[in-house]
């Protein structure tokens, strides 16, 4: 099937009324959770996962994907108007975006953020469309050794880029692996660490863990300190950037899109790191670097393009290899599995309507986001005015409904509360939840591939070295972890360290 006919198939799926409705719901909710600090795409996707059960699989996945890239758009609104990033990927947008707002240029800042996001998001979908089929054909040849090594690399990169101590991030990754392996052994059906509880036979649920670590922990952290927000009060006019703004933004938009696309594909990379690197790159390339941090439009355009491009290209490893590059897409992998689908090289062959339907829906979703974001800025500002004392009980309620409705289990609520408290304490003591969650998702796949590789090679570890790809991945992972120990490089790591989410 050539590219054009594939895209035509995708559009015929994405343009079905039910899929359009789910796409709209996804990008709308995504923008909303992006706007609201304290609830992110992970929590929103966990909450709405059960809602997709009654829908066709493609509609459910289209909605969840829409929440992810929609939240990238919404995050910039809060960053510019309130100086609080709605999303971790919008942290750098605060620096110049809010300064522009203070100088009376909130309109062009919001405008360039929305249009830059649209351009980068669309380019990323084009890239995804071109790269994914080739990568999927290549990935069919991958064996268990290559998959295992790729997952080790992904986990190492995420651990390396985690905020704070590498040692703590590695402990989190190990703990996540252990949690992921709880339940029946997929090879010989032996129960493992189930403590004779029936609820643990199928393992611990991803959603209760994610909702606990990201939703409840965030709420517990927020309620212990009084939150006050200074919302930009002036009337926002003139959303269209001027010709000069466009001239200053063209280069950053192009570079941000390319950078975000490349970094988004890499395991462990993603929207947050690409926005930080884009900002640093634009500052370095600028003829007036002193204007950065004081309202430079390039400081908004570059990072916004980068985080949206990364959000789009992150689907490439997920859809072609079945390996999620970050926590949000790990949750989307869970959604695929719940719907009886296995992302990977065969998805495109076995379910072309779903693969191309998702790709086409991302085009449509980007257009919807552009239409949603600019005229509805006033509404998002009103949403931001809802006091936290009203917002947090509602978020708690959403978490409770989301977790319970997944398998109608009270036990899952207790698991969520337990991980909420654990996540709160982890934040206090400088432990990052992101490596834990990614390791939790990758754990069963890693174990399966490791055991299969050893069985195939008759117990020889040379299988991981014989394959060039596997060797390259393991060497890169070892190099990354080794460099984190060298003092000079440790400082560099600290500069690019991020808070994934």
């Amino acid at each position, binding site marked *: 099937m050539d590219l054009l006919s594939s895209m035509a198939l995708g559009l015929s799926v994405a343009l079905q009324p039910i899929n359009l409705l789910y796409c709209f719901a996804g990008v709308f909710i995504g923008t909303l959770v992006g706007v609201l600090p304290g609830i992110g795409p992970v929590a929103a996707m966990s909450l709405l996962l059960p809602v997709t059960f009654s829908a066709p699989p493609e509609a459910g996945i289209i909605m969840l994907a829409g929440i992810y890239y929609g939240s990238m758009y919404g995050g910039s609104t809060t960053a510019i108007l309130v100086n609080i990033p709605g999303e971790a990927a919008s942290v750098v947008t605060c620096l110049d975006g809010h300064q522009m707002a203070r100088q009376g240029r909130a309109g062009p800042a919001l405008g360039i953020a929305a249009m830059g996001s649209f351009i980068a998001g669309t380019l990323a979908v084009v890239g995804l469309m071109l790269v994914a089929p080739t990568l999927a054909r290549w990935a069919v040849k991958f064996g268990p050794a290559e998959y295992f090594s790729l997952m080790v690399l992904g986990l190492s990169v995420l651990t390396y880029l985690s905020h704070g101590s590498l040692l703590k991030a590695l402990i989190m990754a190990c703990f996540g692996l*252990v949690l992921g392996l709880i339940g029946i052994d997929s090879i010989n059906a032996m129960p493992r660490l189930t403590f004779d509880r029936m609820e643990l036979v199928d393992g611990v649920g991803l959603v209760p863990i994610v909702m606990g670590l990201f939703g*409840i922990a965030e709420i517990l952290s927020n309620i212990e300190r009084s939150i006050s927000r200074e919302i930009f009060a002036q009337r926002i006019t003139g959303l269209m950037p001027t010709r000069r703004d466009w001239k200053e933004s063209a280069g950053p938009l192009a570079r941000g899109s390319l950078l975000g696309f490349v970094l988004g594909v890499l395991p462990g990379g993603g929207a947050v790191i690409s926005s930080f690197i884009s900002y640093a790159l634009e500052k370095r390339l600028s003829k007036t670097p002193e204007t950065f941090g004081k309202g430079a439009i390039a400081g908004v355009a570059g990072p916004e393009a980068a985080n949206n491009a990364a959000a789009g290209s992150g689907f490439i490893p997920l859809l072609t290899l079945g390996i999620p590059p970050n926590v949000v897409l790990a949750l989307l992998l869970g959604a695929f599995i719940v719907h009886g689908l296995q992302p990977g090289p065969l998805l495109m062959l076995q379910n072309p309507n779903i693969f191309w339907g998702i790709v086409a829906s991302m085009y449509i979703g980007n257009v919807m986001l552009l239409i949603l974001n600019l005229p509805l800025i006033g509404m998002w500002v009103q949403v931001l005015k809802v006091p936290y*004392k009203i917002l947090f009980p509602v978020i708690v309620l959403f978490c409770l409904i989301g977790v319970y409705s997944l398998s109608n289990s009270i036990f899952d609520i207790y698991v969520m509360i337990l991980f909420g408290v654990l996540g709160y304490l982890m934040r206090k003591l400088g432990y990052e939840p992101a490596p834990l969650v990614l390791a939790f998702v990758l754990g069963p796949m890693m174990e399966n591939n*490791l055991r299969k590789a050893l069985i195939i090679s008759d117990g020889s570890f040379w299988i991981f070295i014989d394959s060039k790809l596997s060797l390259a991945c393991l060497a890169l992972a070892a190099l990354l972890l080794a460099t984190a120990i060298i003092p000079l490089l440790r400082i560099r790591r600290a500069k690019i360290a991020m808070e994934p989410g």
Partner: protein
Amino acid sequence: MRIGDLVAALVWLTVASYVTLDGWKMGLGSLNDPGSGFMFFWVGAIMMGLSLAALGAALREPAGEALATLWAGTRWWLVPYVTVLLALYAWLLPTLGFLAATMLLLCILFKTVDPMGWLASLFAAVATSLVSYVVFHRWLGTQLPAGQIKDWIAPWIF
């Protein structure tokens, strides 16, 4: 942070030791046919090594401030308070059902954390519970527990 790091490292060391031991008990198998405990054992062993390194790093840190400084100037009591409320909610949910349990939880949260007036709290709790019930249960078809209140009340009414 020293005491906090020490305590955390000890907790992780305990968890890692348990996992390693359990992995050993499950059976490591052989290299050409790894057993159920193979991955547990090795991940647990690596985690033990990392926890020991974290413990060593914490011991090398200067004494620093007490653990309590992490909560200085915060409303820390709200954290256990909300946690207990959530656990009670989970406990009462099968008995009271979604609507009654949610109204109760939300009313207490609205009234006691960043307090609102009684009437406002009650109104916000009832409205939020009803709207979420209609949206999630009626429109989106989400299964929510009905509770046993109806069963208790029915004999009195009929």
